[in-house]
């Protein structure tokens, strides 16, 4: 999630979501122009979907792409995977859903549907549903992510009442570590 001034909500009537196909040249082309901003943390998100995810030999994330229906442009994406981590609240390492990368293209930031729901929020709901429905997930599995502490817009998004991620500690460098425990 990037920073910057608040913009007027852009109405985007229809968005389709599907899984990214790593064996598809069309999908690679779809991702090539993705740009979610020029801040350091925004560049890292763009670099993931443009380049990093396509590198050979990686253990791939579960990646959902949201495509603006009219023009076929990549509105945003979310990537998650299971990880086993230590959490402050838990005495033993636990499996979590790590939201590895989540980004909305600059031109679609703040975009809403016809009912006023932000597409970014709907995309996160989609990601969480997808992760929770996975056969290796459990109902009480926490969601974990890292967000740059300078990324005010992103921190507002994750810690808002709608999602209520909690800052539980520092991560590496400028990162904050956040966790959300979903309702069962």
């Amino acid at each position, binding site marked *: 999630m990037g920073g910057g001034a608040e913009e007027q909500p852009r109405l985007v009537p229809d*968005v*389709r979501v599907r*899984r990214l196909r790593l064996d598809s040249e069309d999908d690679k082309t779809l991702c090539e122009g993705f740009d979610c901003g020029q801040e350091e943390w925004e560049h890292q998100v763009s670099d993931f979907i443009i380049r990093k995810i396509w590198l050979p030999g990686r253990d791939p994330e579960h990646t959902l792409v949201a495509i603006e229906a009219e023009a076929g442009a990549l509105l945003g994406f979310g990537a998650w995977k299971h990880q086993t981590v230590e959490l402050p609240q838990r005495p033993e390492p636990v499996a979590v859903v790590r939201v590895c990368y989540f980004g909305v293209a600059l031109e679609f930031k703040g975009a809403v549907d016809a009912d006023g729901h932000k597409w970014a929020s709907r995309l996160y709901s989609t990601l969480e549903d997808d992760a929770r429905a996975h056969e290796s997930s459990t109902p009480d599995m926490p969601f974990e992510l890292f967000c740059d502490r300078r990324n005010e817009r992103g*921190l507002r998004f994750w810690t808002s*009442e*709608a*999602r209520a991620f909690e*800052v539980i*500690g520092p991560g590496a460098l400028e990162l904050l570590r956040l966790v959300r425990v979903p*309702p069962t």
Partner: protein
Amino acid sequence: MTATGQTQIRTPELAPEVMDLRRVQSQGALSASDPNRLMAAYLELDQHDIYVTSRSVLGFRDGQRFLEVISRQGPQLVDPPITIEA
């Protein structure tokens, strides 16, 4: 109370007191809605203090956790998910 208005909790035996999050927060603790300030306070206090958020209390000493109050569950997501196409 510390210079930043946080309540210092030094021993796990005090856990029943900090379960009352409203009391802790009324004494000037920080919430997750202000994570940058929370992080700044954490560093200023030489990592000998506690995180207090709306859902959890976590104590650290020299970077090591010594106190915890289990988080409540987060809310149900209200924004409708998008159907994932096959």
